[in-house]
């Protein structure tokens, strides 16, 4: 047997755990401790937080998938269930794979009818163990989580020293908390070692596959991108799942953008903030602030999710037509309307692409993981200024709020922001007269100027009809000249969008096109399909307008499946309209229940249609 086969049989470094908890009981840190430990052991791993739109008391789940080959999209096959929520016992027990394990708190007896003969039940008296050792009810609730983590350390054969180390990193500065955690961990660990045969067949063995990786969520990476891109003004209105973009940006700015003022007068603050974040009264205001700041020359951005994007619609049209740069990060969640705020979809694609009434076409970027969140956010600022137009970064909840293992982010200190065509005082002196919408370059961009620089650069921006001189117009020709250039500019941007990620398989007649957080699941699906005898090439779009490769890819394959997480096949529709690809070649695989995508769903969706 090959090593891979052995692993599969024993499920070493190839398994999935699901942890069922109650929201607000502090399980998150225990769960990510486990994931972190596996990651440190050099084994590819992912953690997906399936949480409710609630602060306290409702069911919440956490899924950990371990896969030596890096297939860490959501698994639907759970080798081990940690059932910590009485409300969901029935459902959780039903979800364990046959032959799998279930760990539960047997401080209370488990009703007999819930038992399954094909599942091994591992009872740990967590509540009792903790009640003995901890006094406050708060601590008892919290430490139960650490205790089951301790049991899992034993069951999964995680390195106890490494886990201890992780605890120290987290709580080192709060000795008492550290000690409680260590104690709780030990309680669980020792109980498991004493009562079960550890490790389970599904367990972890050290590898060296995460050395160059970090574990980071997309929203933090996006915030880092904005920081590194040099954004100085940001405006936002809180909304799940985008909130942590700006909260991280604020935190990062407080760390990296605070400048000491050595000569501050007494009573004056001893530091200055080289940034300004406006918590706006709503999303309309947030985008208004960004448009104003960008117009005045700052790199500015906002972050939001679906409902906020809808509210930004009118101002997106203004920025488009007046050619003011603006970066909008949309961390997509499940719609329509308020929908499921803590669930994932890519369902704002059409709305974003054509945001606003009238003829508008926006630039879109589609990161697939936190690494791309970082780099594409930086790129968004460059494109927004290069093309003087809004750029929408369409991330999603899975990318934004879950921790992903991605290559360490790198930065090139030679990077210079692409401010696009901006005339400074010097250049303005050299031209006879400045007109805002004339003198287009090969990208159909015309130079702009910034307020406060020179009276020669003054111009009047208007969202109403204007001619190439910037003057008000209602004349068809003058009006058309400008909107035609805008269309040309949009087309020209295609070549400057990030190239699609492409994996052509020799002889493949099937193509699979996808976007965003579907990435990992679709890649895994392509491999599974190949094992099942279906060779499929892979393309992931990363920007709109689509570079020519997208159409080429469709032309190169007999049939293309577009895999996306929405009901209405929005990416497929956009591809159809914008590439003019023959619609009969395009098929949809749509998974839109709101949970992160799994390869199994993709394979099933494709196979179903191939068999017909």
């Amino acid at each position, binding site marked *: 047997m090959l090593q891979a086969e052995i692993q599969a049989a024993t499920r070493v470094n190839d398994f999935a755990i699901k942890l069922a908890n109650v929201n607000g009981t502090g399980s998150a840190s225990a769960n990510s401790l486990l994931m972190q430990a596996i990651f*440190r052991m050099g084994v590819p791993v992912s953690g997906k937080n399936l949480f409710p739109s609630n602060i306290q008391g409702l069911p919440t789940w956490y899924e950990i998938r371990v896969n030596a080959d890096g297939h860490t999209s959501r698994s639907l096959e759970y080798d081990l269930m940690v059932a910590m929520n009485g409300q969901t016992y029935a459902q959780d027990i039903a979800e364990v794979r046959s032959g799998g394990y279930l760990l539960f708190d047997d401080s209370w007896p488990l009703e007999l009818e819930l038992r399954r003969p094909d599942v091994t039940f591992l009872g740990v008296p967590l509540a009792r163990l903790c009640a003995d050792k901890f006094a406050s009810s708060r601590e008892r609730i919290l430490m139960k989580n650490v205790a089951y983590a301790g049991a899992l350390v034993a069951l999964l054969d995680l390195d106890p020293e490494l886990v201890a180390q992780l605890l120290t990193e987290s709580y080192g500065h709060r000795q008492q908390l550290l000690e409680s955690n260590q104690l709780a961990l030990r309680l669980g660990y020792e109980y498991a070692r004493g009562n079960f045969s550890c490790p389970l067949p599904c367990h972890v063995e050290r590898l060296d596959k995460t050395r160059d990786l*970090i*574990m*980071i969520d997309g929203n933090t990476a996006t915030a*880092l991108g904005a*920081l*590194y891109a*040099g954004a*100085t*003004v940001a*405006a936002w209105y809180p909304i799940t799942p985008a909130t942590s973009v700006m909260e991280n940006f604020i935190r990062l700015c407080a760390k990296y*953008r605070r*400048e000491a003022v050595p000569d501050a007068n007494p009573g004056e*603050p001893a*530091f*200055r*903030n*080289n940034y*300004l*974040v*406006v918590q*706006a*009264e709503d999303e*309309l*205001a*947030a*985008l*208004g*602030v960004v*448009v*104003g*700041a*960008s*117009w*005045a*020359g*700052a790199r*500015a951005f906002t972050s939001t999710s679906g409902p906020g994007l809808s509210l930004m619609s*009118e*101002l997106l049209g*203004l920025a488009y037509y*007046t050619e003011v740069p603006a970066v909008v990060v949309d961390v997509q969640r499940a719609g329509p309307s308020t929908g499921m705020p803590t669930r994932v979809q890519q369902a704002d694609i059409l709305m974003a692409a054509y945001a606003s009434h009238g003829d508008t076409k926006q630039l879109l970027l589609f990161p697939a993981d936190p690494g791309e969140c970082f780099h594409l956010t930086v790129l968004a600022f460059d494109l927004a200024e290069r093309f003087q137009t809004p750029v929408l970064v369409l991330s999603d909840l899975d990318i934004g709020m879950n921790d992903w293992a991605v290559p360490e*982010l790198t*930065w*090139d200190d030679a*990077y*210079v922001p692409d401010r696009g065509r901006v005339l400074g005082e010097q250049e303005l002196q050299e031209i006879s007269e400045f007109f805002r919408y004339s003198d287009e370059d090969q990208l159909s961009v015309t130079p702009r*100027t*910034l*307020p*406060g*620089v*020179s*009276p020669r650069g*003054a*111009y*009047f*921006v*208007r*969202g109403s009809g204007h001619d190439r001189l910037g003057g008000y117009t209602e004349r068809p020709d003058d009006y058309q000249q400008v909107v035609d250039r805008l269309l040309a500019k949009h087309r020209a941007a295609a070549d400057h969008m990030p190239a699609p990620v492409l994996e052509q398989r020799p002889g493949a007649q099937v193509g699979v096109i996808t976007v965003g957080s579907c990435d990992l699941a679709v890649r895994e699906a392509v491999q599974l399909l190949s094992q099942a005898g279906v060779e499929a090439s892979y393309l992931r779009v990363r920007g709109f307008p689509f570079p020519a490769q997208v159409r080429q890819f469709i032309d190169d394959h007999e049939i293309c499946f577009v895999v996306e997480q929405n009901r209405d096949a929005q990416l497929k529709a956009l591809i159809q309209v914008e590439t003019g690809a023959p619609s009969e070649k395009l098929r949809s695989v749509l998974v839109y229940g709101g949970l992160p995508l799994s390869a199994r769903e993709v394979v099933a969706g494709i196979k179903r249609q191939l068999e017909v």
Partner: protein
Amino acid sequence: MPSITKPLIPLVPLLRNELGLTLQDYAGGMSTLCAGCGHDSITAALIQTFWELSVPPHMIAKLSGIGCSSKTPAYFASHAHGFNSVHGRMATIATGAGAANRDLLLVGVSGDGDSLSIGLGHLCHAIRRNVRMLYLIENNGVYGLTKGQFSASADIGSTSRRGEANLLQAVDPILLGLSLGATFLARGFSGDKEQLVPILKAAAAHDGFALVDIISPCVQFNDHEGSTKSYRYMRDHELKEIDADFISAHEEIVEVLGPGLATDVAMHDGGRVRFRAVPEDYDPRDRGGVEAYLRDRVGHGEIVTGLLYIDESVPDMHGLGRTPREPLVNLPYQKLCPGKDELRRFQESFR
């Protein structure tokens, strides 16, 4: 020639200000508003104000929403940047522009529809943030550009051209501002440039959000007896409570006023505003007194004009944000980017 002659804003072309600029240098494009529109008079007052203050034109950022009033930024200060944006959102765009470049003199021009209907929430929040700007409401009690519907500042009982009576209470931006902790509140009348220019100068010097409500009759749709925003009503009822005479810090000439009748208020930028209060004891810094006084006059159906309230103790948005004195737009990129090594260090906690 059969075309309508527009009111030419009377400029004295030869006088030069400290920058050596003439009034003409602060002029703008030809107005396309109706002949006699109050908004054009306000435009003239703005031109006068900026000229007198010797503001470098390119340091002015003119912002507006949509409406007849919101068109006016095209009619003054051609050498300033202007942003005629969308209906009701001007305050937000100004907030952003001010955030990016605090050296700009933000001049927001809005209408009562733009500010008190669709844009009311933003106005309130710009007040709350104390964004340093001059915010004008060219208040005519109607939606001029859409042809005469009542706005939120239409007077109860005033009748429109179509004969319907307005039954809803008017939103009074001054009272509203007071309730929200506004730091500068003034009211003028488009027909009285003598009073308006000093008010605008004071507003421009205020280190925070300066709200100036200017009654500006719409000759097309609201200049009739039913409305307090009409010329006739204003001429009969206007009550000049205070004459604001702005004296820039650069020229120390002070109009000699009768002693005991004046209140001096120091501006953050060193300028001073002197008030001649008709009621001898009027103190624009005493919020309680101001509120009571205004209520009382409103109760008598009077419109109080002048600098009505000022509070210089509240830091503006940048003060609250502790940004550097230098505009954020001027910070070099090197100051903004932590660089490669720091990125590596930062990521150590993500392993």
